[in-house]
């Protein structure tokens, strides 16, 4: 395959290698005949396949473990126009499952290499790569697609995508305009476990409706890390959280990079020392890396299963030929094989999709800090670093913002002021921005006595 600096632009045909006798026989059996599993409204015909090959636009988010599998499955299922977004470059540890990449590709953008591989192996399929963060693309980009399928490794990113598709919805007389709904198929895996879900934004349960399903992240208490370590993990966290910022071993302001073996080696050696002080055994290089990078174990087979399930749903929705999954499947093959499907329900007051402004109940004497704590700690909101703005005395006022140092400093005193002191009133609207959602969320402040 020739090295290319620019993405391959292919106009229409690609010579004789694009079509051959019998190429789509298997797909045709699904679409040109009815059967006991076809959708009751389905009319067999040849148009569906043409739609997949030439018209339907699918967006794949992520070109990693799930992404590679999704691209393969979609391409072989007849989808001819696929876009893929991924902000990462290829690492050696990806090669045990991200099979579109080879040792020579290490360091290159995943989206680019994945697209090249599929375009080459599946002639006629056009995959367009985007080496970007999902947040770098806007609604004009996302609006182009018929279906979006996610193979992400972060809940924050999922919520962002979820929020983006919700923001595209058009409402007529309180009802969702069906043509503005872009289905979101979401897959996730971890070791031998995985899940696949079908989301129709504004119609079925969204990511935020079921936020409580995600297990909480394990964080060790500070006193354990600082003065009472018992496990090797505690020793590693001590070095990461306390020793590194103090010693800045690789230069002032140089942050710990989990992908830099020298950094990990430094943490490993210091963790061994710490552990020795307390007679703790078990600190290894592998454990050190796992703790610092919060590594999630991964294998090819789980990704293959979940991606296949997701692709099947994309196929069903694109062709309307089969009854889609309704709507959440879990899979686990740690011990034998277990799978279960249930219908996740919409949450009545979902902060993302219910269109109902979320009420915040606080006495006017409570400190603003308490409101922020609620936004981050409540299981239904789980915000990361919310920025809050309100209209006070006719003027828009930023009450607190963490991400810009100068503004953080300026607004920090507000944290210890009471809501009354800040000039906030009962029924006041608060606009909150956060990484978990592309749009500002509106809350209504309700004073309690």
């Amino acid at each position, binding site marked *: 395959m020739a090295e290319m600096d620019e993405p391959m632009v292919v106009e229409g045909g690609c010579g004789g290698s694009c079509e051959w006798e*019998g190429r789509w026989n*298997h797909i045709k059996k699904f679409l040109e005949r009815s059967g006991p599993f076809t959708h009751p409204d389905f009319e067999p015909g040849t148009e569906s396949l043409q739609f997949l090959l030439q018209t339907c636009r699918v967006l794949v988010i992520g070109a990693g473990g799930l992404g590679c599998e999704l691209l393969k499955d979609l391409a072989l299922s007849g989808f001819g126009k696929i876009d893929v977004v991924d902000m990462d470059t290829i690492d050696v540890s990806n090669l045990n499952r991200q099979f579109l990449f080879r040792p020579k590709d290490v360091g290159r953008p995943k989206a680019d290499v994945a697209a090249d591989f599929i375009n080459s192996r599946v002639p006629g399929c056009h995959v367009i790569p985007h080496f970007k963060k999902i947040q770098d693309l806007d609604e004009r980009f996302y609006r182009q697609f018929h279906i979006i399928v996610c193979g992400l490794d972060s809940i924050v990113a999922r919520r962002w995508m979820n929020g983006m598709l919700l923001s595209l919805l058009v409402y007529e007389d309180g009802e969702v305009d069906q043509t503005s709904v872009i289905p979101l198929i979401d897959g996730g895996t971890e070791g031998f476990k995985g899940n696949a879900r079908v989301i129709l934004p504004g119609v079925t349960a969204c990511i935020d409706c079921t936020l409580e399903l995600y297990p909480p992240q394990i964080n060790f208490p500070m006193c354990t890390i600082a003065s009472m370590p018992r496990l090797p993990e505690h020793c590693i966290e001590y070095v990461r959280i306390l020793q590194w910022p103090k010693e800045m071993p690789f230069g002032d302001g140089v942050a710990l990079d989990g992908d830099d073996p020298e950094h990990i080696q430094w943490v490993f050696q210091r963790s061994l020392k710490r552990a020795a002080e307390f007679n703790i055994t078990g600190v290894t290089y592998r454990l050190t890396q796992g703790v610092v990078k919060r590594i999630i174990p991964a294998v090819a087979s789980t990704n293959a299963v979940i991606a296949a399930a997701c692709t099947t749903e994309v196929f069903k929705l694109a062709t309307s030929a089969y009854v889609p999954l309704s709507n959440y499947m879990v899979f686990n093959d740690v011990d034998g094989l277990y799978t279960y499907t249930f219908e996740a329900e919409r949450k009545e007051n979902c902060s993302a999709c219910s269109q109902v402004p979320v009420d915040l109940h606080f006495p006017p004497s409570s400190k603003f800090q308490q409101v922020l704590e609620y936004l981050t700690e409540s299981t239904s909101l789980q915000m990361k670093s919310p920025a809050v703005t309100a209209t006070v005395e006719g003027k828009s006022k930023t009450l607190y913002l963490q991400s810009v140092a100068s503004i953080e400093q300026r607004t920090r005193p507000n944290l210890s002021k009471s809501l009354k002191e800040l000039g906030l009133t009962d029924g006041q609207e608060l606009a909150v921005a956060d990484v978990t959602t592309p749009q500002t969320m509106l809350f209504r402040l309700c004073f309690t006595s």
Partner: protein
Amino acid sequence: MAATKDSKEQKYDRQLRLWGDHGQEALENAHVCLINATATGTEILKNLVLPGIGAFTIVDGHIVSGEDAGNNFFLSSDSIGKNRAQAATELLQELNSDVSGNFVEESPDKLLDNDPEFFHRFTIVIGVQLPESTCLRLGMVLWSASVPFLICKAYGLIGYMRLMVQEHTVIESHPDNALEDLRLDRPFDEFKSHIKSYNLSIMDKKDHSHTPWVIIVAKYLERWLSEHDGQPPKNYKEKEAFRQIIREGILKNENGGLEDEENFEEAIKNVNTALNPTKVPTSVEDLFNSEQCNNITAQSSSFWVMLRAVKEFVYNEGSGSLPVRGSIPDMIADSQKFINLQNVYREKAMQDAAAVSKHVESLLQSVGKPPESISEKDIKLFCKNSSFLRVVRCRSLAEEYSVDSINKDEITSRMDSPDSEMVFYLMLRAVDRFYQLHSRYPGFRKSLRISGAF
């Protein structure tokens, strides 16, 4: 091109965190046979080649058709007209240079006719889209050679997998949710004396708040037992009363309010599971009662010898319990108290493993094998995992297909349930039977002529 240990550790890092070095070693010693490089077959093999099996061999007499090249990622349009085994091997091989790929351009029926022992060399044989007669013939050969056989079929939206393995033993089953082995209901001597070394009533505040919950429960349990005729809390009411007694042990501050003692909260929270009686899991009891355990011969695998040794231990030194596991969960405590407690369990585990070792030695001697045939390391690992041992046994294909073994009532009752897959099973059997009779699959309107095939 040989991968260094380091580069393999890096490449396989994410999977090593699941099955460890032992699992990886077993994988790298495996030679997998795939019969029929269909899309299903190559997909299965992909997921084995990527994690680094030692070798694979594809057996396939078919020529690649246009249809094959259209749905199989490991065939290209260039492969059309070539032998399918060879074409797929090339594209699968390049997924991982650590793996050795081979192919045999032959139908499995021919191999069964001329050289059935060909299949004896494999760790597992995977048969995809095989006709019923081939499955049964191959099943017989593999069953008598004790080679596991995985049969797979895919028809549209229905998939089918049938595993045929006589006996597969698992020592490290990596269970998801394991109950802890704390022995609070039957504390061993060293644990008892460790508990004795604590006196909650005279401890200073810092020590009191950093005493492991296991010690707290043990102390209060001792008191309860002495007050209840040696009977531990059994029902909800008694456990609740027990929790309350522990709650009353929380230190009070000057105002009479409770101090923040997280370790006591942990103790209260763990009362339920901590009071579970220590016993040999039923699954392990069943293994103790099996033929292979009770009849150790020179042919017995090390799994059964070690299991028998553990059984002997349970009935002797163990006084009805398995060897102590040796690991304890993290709990609020200062480092020293935690490490000391952990060491009590670790040392007991080592003692128990040594006792099991002696049984292993005498068993080996009794069948004329040297004591070194099973290493200390393996025995320790076995003991640590003794609660989680698993043996998988499946019946032969011949038995499944035999008219005598049909469970008519069970089958018909399941057919009435809308959620049952029994209907699919029967349909798949019917499809296979149709193929045997008509040499084509139902639904094929044209007769397909594929050279070299059935």
